[in-house]
């Protein structure tokens, strides 16, 4: 019993809130690229907030249910259909055994979360059901779902249909995106002028944007402060002696195209980092399509912590409505 995958979509994976605690061993934190959307999807169907959902990117899967279930789709504006009938996003709905959930073309955002009452019940590995595909860990046999898979589903919590996250409480980028970041780590490696035009320039999300990182293009190349490269660093001025890469850190290989590391990132290496995108804005990156215009905005630690509290409050407001 569970869900039969008729068409998997582009790279649909099982994700929960991830597996923090192993990054120092090279195992990324993983989990949903838009954690707020995953929390909301689970709340809508009466699951624990960290239950495993399907994360689909840019296009939806086609799924046949073999048992009755309550389902909710949050995150990207990816219009769901049950047996061809259009349904609302951010709203709980009933799907009966034998019915097929499919999706229309993406209208906005990048990643949609499909929560099913009871959660996707694949084995827990290192504390999480999240799929880390390049490490063949977690999820469904360590990979994106494929046609012919049957996904196990837990016990139905049986909440009502029609429960909805109010529109004002949803979060989705519209128009150019501002990503707040704290300069630091290796900021001193670039010139003052380069530091200024990094924030002045309009960047665009490159097509190379995935669960490991988001690459940006379109700004001017960064000039480096001349130095004799230390022992252990490569010869390129953007190289450093190998260091830890934090989640959200911004590396700029060759000084040309910034890459923001995301949930499935490598944990260390030899590129300098300009700074780190604040945790409150990481979900937003998960909803950015290629070619989205982006500006980086400098903030300090107090502003970053305030923004984190605002996001926690926003989630609490959703709980107040739904629980």
């Amino acid at each position, binding site marked *: 019993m569970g869900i039969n995958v008729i068409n998997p979509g582009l790279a649909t994976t099982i994700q929960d809130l991830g597996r923090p605690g192993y990054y120092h061993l090279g195992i990324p934190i993983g989990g949903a690229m838009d954690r707020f959307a995953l929390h909301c999807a689970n709340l809508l169907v009466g699951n624990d907030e960290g239950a495993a959902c399907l994360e689909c990117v840019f296009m939806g899967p086609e799924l046949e249910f073999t048992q009755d279930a309550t389902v909710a789709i949050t995150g990207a504006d990816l219009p769901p259909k049950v047996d061809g009938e259009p349904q609302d996003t951010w709203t709980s709905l009933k799907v009966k055994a034998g019915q097929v959930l499919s999706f229309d073309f993406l209208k906005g955002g990048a990643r949609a979360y499909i929560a099913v009452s009871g959660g996707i019940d694949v084995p827990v590995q290192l504390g999480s059901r999240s799929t880390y595909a390049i490490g063949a860990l977690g999820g469904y046999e360590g990979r994106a779902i494929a046609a012919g898979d049957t996904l196990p589903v837990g016990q139905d919590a049986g909440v009502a249909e029609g429960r909805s996250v109010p529109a004002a409480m949803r979060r989705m980028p519209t128009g150019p995106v501002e990503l707040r970041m704290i300069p630091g780590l290796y900021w001193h490696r670039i010139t003052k002028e380069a530091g200024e035009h990094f924030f002045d320039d309009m960047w665009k999300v490159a097509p*190379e944007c995935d669960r490991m990182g988001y690459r940006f293009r379109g700004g001017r190349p960064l000039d480096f402060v001349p130095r004799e490269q230390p022992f252990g660093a490569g010869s390129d001025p953007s190289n450093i002696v190998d260091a830890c890469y934090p989640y959200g850190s911004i590396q700029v290989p060759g000084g040309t195209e910034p890459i923001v590391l995301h949930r499935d990132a490598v944990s260390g290496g030899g590129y300098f980092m300009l700074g780190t995108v604040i945790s409150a804005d990481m979900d937003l990156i998960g909803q950015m399509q290629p070619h989205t215009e982006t500006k980086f905005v400098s903030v300090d630690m107090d502003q970053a912590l305030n923004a984190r509290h605002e996001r926690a409050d926003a989630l609490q407001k959703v709980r107040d409505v739904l629980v």
Partner: protein
Amino acid sequence: MSIEIFSPLPGTFYRKPAPDQPVYKESGDAVAKGDVIGLVEVMKTFYEVKSELDGHIDVFLVENEDPVQAGQPLAKLKG
């Protein structure tokens, strides 16, 4: 009857399987259901865009290497 083929996802549209290869289809070419008419690249993945019916390509609506949105028409077919 004129029918459009839509991009299923956002990315970059290619009319060729590789830079040194000929295009999949020219305007006026016959297509059968399931024929690949182009690729959309996103996240280092190339997704094949296929025709959903038999007919002829009337016209391509986007150029090779153009950025495309999900649901954007890529070509017109004559049934």
